[in-house]
């Protein structure tokens, strides 16, 4: 009962958010809608018992990525002139009819493809009764430092590299 409610709420938030990101004409709104969609995903994680994953999703996306996106929007959209020296508008549109036609075409193609793949998979899958998760944190921690320690360390190096790289790239320079 509770779980179903939470699932419906989360799924609705997720899908509506995603659709909003697609159709929103305002970049700021798109960002906020993306945040809603990601919260929905976090809720979906929580429904299937992946509590650590849900919290990670909240911390990283709500606290980090979306605010970064908002910052980037602020830092790049501040000019009042409409076109740059290349003749293209400075604050690019969120899509025109042409691009939407292309996007729709691509989406159709890929939808059929994925649905074809999924249909085969659904037929072969019979739903089994598996026990719910209880407290995934310890198990994830154990797995991270035993079976997946290499990936864990590599991801730490990746993060360090991203940190340094982002700082170096975005540093204001002359010329």
């Amino acid at each position, binding site marked *: 009962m509770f779980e179903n409610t939470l699932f419906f709420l989360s799924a609705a938030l997720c899908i509506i958010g995603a659709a909003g990101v697609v159709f929103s004409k305002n970049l*700021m709104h798109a960002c906020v809608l993306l945040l809603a969609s990601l919260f929905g995903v976090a809720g979906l994680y929580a429904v299937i018992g992946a509590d650590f994953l849900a919290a990670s999703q909240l911390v990283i996306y*709500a606290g980090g990525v979306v605010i970064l996106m908002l910052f980037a929007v602020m830092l790049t959209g501040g000019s009042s002139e409409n076109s740059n020296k290349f003749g293209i508008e400075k604050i690019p549109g969120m899509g025109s009819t042409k691009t939407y036609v292309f996007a729709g075409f691509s989406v159709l193609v890929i939808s059929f493809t994925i649905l074809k793949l999924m249909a085969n998979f659904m037929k072969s899958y019979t739903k089994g009764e598996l026990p719910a998760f209880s407290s995934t944190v310890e198990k994830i921690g154990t797995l991270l430092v035993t079976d997946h320690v290499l990936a864990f360390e590599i991801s730490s190096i990746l993060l360090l590299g991203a940190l340094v790289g982002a700082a170096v790239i975005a540093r204001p320079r002359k010329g």
Partner: protein
Amino acid sequence: MSLSINDYLNQFEAHQKAISFISELLGFDASGLITFLVFATAAFVVVNVMALIGGLGTYAERKISADIQLRQGPNRVGPYGLLQFLADGVKMIMKEDIFPAQADRTLFNLAPLLALIGVFATLAVLPFSSGLTLTNLNIGVFYLIGVSSLVGVAVFLGGYSANSKWSMLGGMRGASQIISYEVPVTITILSIVLMSGGLSFGSFVESQGGFPHQWFIFHNPFTFIGFFVFFIGMLAETNRAPFDLPEAESELVSGYHTEYTGMRFGLFALAEYIEVFVLCGVAAAAFLGGYKVPFDLGNGVVFVEKLGLPAIIGKNIGQVLQLGSFLTKTLFLYYVVIWVRWTFPRIRVDQVMTICWKYLTPIALFNLVGITLWVFAFDGQSIWEVLSHMGGGAHGGGH
């Protein structure tokens, strides 16, 4: 420590009897409905009490600042001016609701709500007492950090949507400050997680004791430093003085809520005061023993055995004592926060970032390493236990 307030109530026979009675009455299994009702009631109560506390926060702020500045403070409405906040609320509701012409109306409406949502969502895991915890998530702290970062988004959106340069600057300052200070605060909490061995607030509190020497703040020298790192980071995260750059009156009129009027501004202010309370509660739970009462009075066993009271009454007396203990510590920290605001001058905007990245973060990392070594070297014992064992060892050596 129960899993949630519902589990706590399920301990009592009366509760189970009530459930079975209602089930018979309605003709289906009413346990789910009761659970929902219990949660709804508890959440309603907690949120309203918190709103009340937030409102009283404004009163306390004005009263304490008046005390510090040798003034009277509000004293007209109600006894000692206690009802001043209600009068303010009425005034705000009655005010005209103004939208700036160029504002992004959707986001302008959304921002205060997001702030309030983020703050209220954190209340779900705040351990008021061993029973009165809405839910004791096993990733409680992580959840709290994630949800409270919604406030940063709200501040940013509030600053952006008003389409005013003061708001914009305040919003950007606020957002950058909040996500920056999350780093040392999270690392400090991580060190507490190391010592308690769990991410939930229940495990935090249960691994401490009622007496100050059993608290984590006095556990070892690193945690003592860590508490102040956490406290300073907390001040900055809540945009409190001396880190109230986003709403610096002298520079930015009023920061991200310059263009807000009426109850929207009220919601921002409320969210801020409640967030201060929540973070003070986190500090109390993580460092100051939380709801723990000395001599194990909190579980009520003493009252049942010594005074012969019924179990249910003894347990509830214990809960009240625990609630009192938690509120005492939290409100003391709340007082300190206000005290700091009216004592220290505001620092410059570059100093904010300097303090975060050049001082607090390295110190927090140092603390993390130090606490790791401490836990490894002394098997999780506090400095007092280590000292007493040393003394005992010396005494035993005399034989």
